[in-house]
């Protein structure tokens, strides 16, 4: 493991499997009477959130608290950022307070990388602009492995077909998932309208399709992405209704999936746009499971980054 977790591309297959295996052990904690471990006692984790977030911030907070770390929550609203303080100055303030890890979410791509150059502690990227969201990819990989391979230790996702559908252009979740899932051996296909695919998608380790219906029968996993209206500065499709017709997952489309296939969504959902309510609430949907797995996976990452020496060397 490296000192920071900025991008899913930084993780080798061995690193990724170590995180998933660690998470698999930590998952047992949820069934125990005392859901807390003393491992990170005396360490401080700062949640530095420049963007709104429900599940990621709560998930990181719960993960750090279950490992007995002290958590400081910082949100840009109501802080000195509103008075014009720069990211660097905020970082130096946190540094002076002795943060062992900083979990950062920021609307600018590359913010986590910049921060890593300014602080001593570990930096965990919790989403930077349209760039990456590596812990989301890890929890998705963990969820897929648990559902489709029984969560066996050391197992990758070799040969599984994952179709990621929708607004890839604005999605940090898609990029991190393509990188991580292909590292773990899965075959990833992006299904999206041409206007919602990034220009450089040809260099990504995945296939691209404009036709969702032809991809569904051969998919083991369908991952629906949120249509990120708040990041859209132009008209990427004629109307929400047309998008929903061609790329939304409704019950009729779900019926075309193989029997074992699962439906994922990183949340928050736009019910009725990219995913129909009956699909989101069906037995195939792992959406609630993903949230629970998020805490476990983030505990594994925090343990592996902070649990050892100050500069954890190569793992095995």
């Amino acid at each position: 493991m490296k000192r920071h977790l900025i991008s899913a591309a930084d993780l080798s297959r061995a690193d990724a499997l170590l995180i998933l295996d660690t998470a698999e052990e930590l998952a047992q904690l949820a069934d125990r009477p005392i859901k807390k471990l003393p491992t990170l006692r005396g360490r401080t984790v700062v949640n530095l959130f420049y963007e709104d977030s429900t599940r990621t911030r709560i998930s990181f907070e719960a993960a750090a608290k279950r490992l007995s770390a002290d958590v400081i929550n910082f949100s840009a609203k109501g802080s000195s950022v509103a008075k014009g303080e720069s990211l660097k100055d905020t970082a130096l303030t946190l540094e002076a307070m002795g943060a062992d890890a900083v979990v950062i979410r920021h609307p600018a791509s590359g913010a986590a990388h910049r921060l890593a150059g300014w602080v001593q502690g570990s930096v965990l990227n919790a989403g930077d602009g349209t760039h990456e969201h590596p812990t989301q990819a890890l929890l998705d990989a963990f969820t897929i492995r648990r559902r489709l391979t029984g969560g066996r230790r050391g197992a990758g996702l070799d040969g599984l077909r994952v179709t990621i559908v929708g607004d890839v252009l604005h999605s940090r979740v898609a990029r991190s998932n393509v990188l991580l899932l292909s590292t773990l051996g899965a075959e990833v296909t992006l299904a999206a309208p041409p206007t919602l695919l990034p220009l450089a998608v040809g260099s990504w380790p995945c296939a691209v399709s404009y036709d969702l219906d032809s991809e569904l029968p051969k998919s083991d996993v369908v991952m629906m992405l949120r249509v990120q209206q708040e990041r859209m500065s132009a008209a990427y499709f004629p109307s929400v209704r047309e998008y929903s017709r061609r790329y939304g997952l409704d019950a009729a489309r779900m019926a075309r999936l193989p029997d074992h296939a699962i439906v994922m969504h990183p949340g928050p959902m736009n019910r009725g746009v990219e995913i129909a309510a009956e699909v989101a609430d069906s037995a195939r949907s792992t959406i609630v499971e993903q949230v629970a797995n998020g805490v476990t996976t983030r505990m594994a990452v925090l343990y592996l980054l902070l649990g050892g020496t100050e500069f954890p060397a190569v793992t095995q």
Partner: protein
Amino acid sequence: MCAASSPVAGRDGLAVLDAEEIRRSLTRIAHEILERTHGGDEVILLGIPTRGVPLACRLAARIAEFEKLVVPCGSLDVTLHRDDLRLHPARALGRTELPADGVDGKTVVLVDDVLYSGRTVRAALDALNDLGRPRAVQLAVLVDRGHRELPIRADYVGKNLPTSQREVVHVLLAEVDGQDAVMIGEKEGQP
């Protein structure tokens, strides 16, 4: 670890217990557990990974053989409770598998291969504390090599092995290493 074909003088040094002696030690410990727990009622054997786990299973198999009594056996990983975590890079976690009934009200016998500083056992007691409230906790080890750093002692000992702190003790078990032996050697990098 060690792939030496001869257990007498492998790469890890000198063999102090061979397979036959390990078998006899475990048989004696199994009898002692039955004796001290009045027939093994409400006993759980919990092995500490890696090599404590196969030892716990072997003890359970022997107890089943002697008394026709099924003693549940499981494993207890102590990594997240260790006091030396910050001295090493983060380690991979071992398995924790408890019998379905849990540990509440049971007599838990912790099983490990080597008892040395006692710090692993302290971590195990802490880990156990988070899992429930056993009626009593006992400790069985195959080798007690001395040099305790904490007030901890074993209830059942396979062999007391006086060692120097410059030496290392390796327990090899067929389930993990392909053969049964206890080896004693010099620490690497020491004259």
